[in-house]
Structures are given as C-alpha cells and as structure tokens.
C-alpha cells in the first residue's frame, strides 16, 4: 500500500513537472527585454521558494528535536529526521538557485557573479546548510544531533535576511517580483500561469524527495538502534 501511494505521488509529480515544463517553454510568451533567457525564471524562482520552505521544515524539526530530546525519545528522533531531510533537500534546491542564477546573470548583466546583498546572503545560507550536512556526516558522538539542531536553527535565521535583502539594500539582483510595491507582479496571464505551474510542480517533486529522504533516515536510525542494542546484549552476555 505504501509503495502504491509513493508511486502515485511520483507519477503526479512527474506529470506536473512535464506540464510545467511545457508551459514554461512553449506556452509562456517571450519576455520583451531579456527574450529567451528569461525562461530561466520559471525554474530559478520556484526553486528558491521551495528551498526556503524546506529550510523552514528543517528549523521546525530542529526546534522539535531540542524540545523532545529529554522526555520523548521517539518523537525527537522523528523530528531530527525531518530536520536532516529538510536541510538536505533544501540544499539541493538552493544549489539549483545558485547555479541557474549566474547563468541568467551572465546573459542579462554580462557577469557571472557580483557580491551584492541577495547573492551573498544566499551563498552564506547555502554554506551554513552545507556545514550542517558535513557536521551530520563526519562528526561522531552523542551530542551530534543537538549541535546540528542548534546550527540548523541559526542557519534558518538567514532565510528572512535573504528574502528581505533586495528590499533593505540596493542590489544588482532585480526587485521582488511579488510584494515589491505597486508595480510588482507578473502582468501577462500566460506567464503567471506558467510560473505557478512550475511552483506547484517543483513543490510536488520536492515533497516527494523529502518524504523519501525522511524514510531513508528513519530506516538508518532503526538499524543504528538495533546494532547498538545487539552490541549491548553481547556485552551483557560476555
């Protein structure tokens, strides 16, 4: 039953991605000033939105882990798995943002990279979560989960700074497309539809791989607990 549900979800996500791809490339009209290169927008912005959502999930998981780690061990382990899954999938989407952005910038601005506030804070966010994943991967000992949870909470503090950076400071990066004043927003309905289809598609895909990552981590926790129990039994038998 679980496998069937996963397959149905995967089929929905892939179908949505196919439809959103068609909308972005063949239905949405060409933008007047940037022409064809503007189509990167339909992958760049939804990826950033989904990355922010997953970092928020990581934050919630980290807070829940710290809250439950002393009295509800099973809940704490589940929260820790959500925190790790959110951070890892968030890093994947943030990587997409950091690669598609410079490709767009090279054609639109003539440069691959500039140290403006939006780009720099996004890079810092990515580095914080990569360091979170490195800590999870290479550190050992009983305090790793707690340290990672604290780092995860500090990392999430950068998300609102990234979001507000092109409102607070003058940046090379364009002004916000939504909520950036009376002139902001996408005026063409076909462009708007393509954009929201891509948001829905990448969200569905992201949630699917988040669920898979959570499942893999929970399995890892169960195997680790079984091995620890077996080692304990061996010691007491000896």
């Amino acid at each position: 039953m679980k496998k069937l549900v996963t397959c149905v979800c995967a089929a929905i996500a892939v179908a949505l991605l196919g439809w959103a791809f068609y909308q972005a490339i063949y239905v949405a009209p060409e933008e007047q000033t940037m022409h064809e290169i503007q189509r990167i927008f339909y992958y760049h912005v939804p990826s950033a939105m989904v990355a922010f959502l997953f970092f928020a999930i990581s934050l919630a998981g980290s807070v829940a882990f710290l809250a439950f780690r002393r009295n509800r061990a099973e809940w704490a382990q589940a929260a820790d798995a959500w925190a790790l899954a959110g951070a890892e999938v968030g890093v994947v989407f943030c990587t997409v943002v950091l690669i598609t952005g410079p490709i767009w910038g090279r054609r639109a601005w003539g440069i691959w990279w500039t140290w403006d506030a939006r780009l720099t804070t996004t890079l810092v966010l990515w580095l914080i979560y990569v360091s979170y994943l490195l800590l999870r991967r290479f550190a050992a000992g009983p305090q790793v989960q707690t340290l990672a949870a604290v780092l995860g909470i500090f990392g999430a503090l950068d998300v609102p700074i990234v979001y507000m950076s092109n409102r607070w400071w003058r940046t090379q990066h364009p002004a916000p497309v939504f909520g950036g004043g009376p002139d902001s927003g996408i005026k063409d309905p076909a462009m708007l539809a393509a954009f929201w289809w891509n948001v829905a598609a990448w969200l569905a895909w992201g949630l699917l791989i988040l669920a898979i990552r959570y499942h893999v981590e929970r399995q890892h926790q169960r195997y680790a607990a079984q091995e620890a129990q077996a080692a304990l039994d061996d010691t007491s038998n000896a």
Partner: protein
Amino acid sequence: MKKIAIGLLAAVAVALLGWVYYRAFCLSPDTDPASILNYRFAGAAYAITWAIQLGYLAWLAIKERAQNRNAARSRAIPR
C-alpha cells in the same frame, strides 16, 4: 516497480538531453548570435537543474540500497 521507475527516470533524462541538444544546436541558420546564446544558456540552466535533481534522487536510491544491504549482512552474522 523499481525497474519501471528507473526506466522512466532514464527516459526523462534522455528526452531532456535530446531536447537541450535540439534547442542549442538545431536552430535555423538565420537566428542572430545573441539569440543563439540565449537559447543555449537557458537550455543549460534547465539541463543542470534536472541533472542535480535526478542525480540527488539516484544518490538517495543508492544510499538506501547500501543501507539495507549492510543491515541484512549484520543480521546474518551469528553473535
């Protein structure tokens, strides 16, 4: 079911590669150089996005498989 999923993902990857190649190198001869570059850059951005996402999914599948194999092996060792 797993084989169908792998086949589907491989088909998606091949179709995307074909699409990127077509978009980047099969343009009409009278297309101006700036437009050609725009098509190539946009195609590259889409291809890289898909490569990252499908690569991560493949890495997850490999990780789960290795994890299950290690668990089965450690269960098989008599204590």
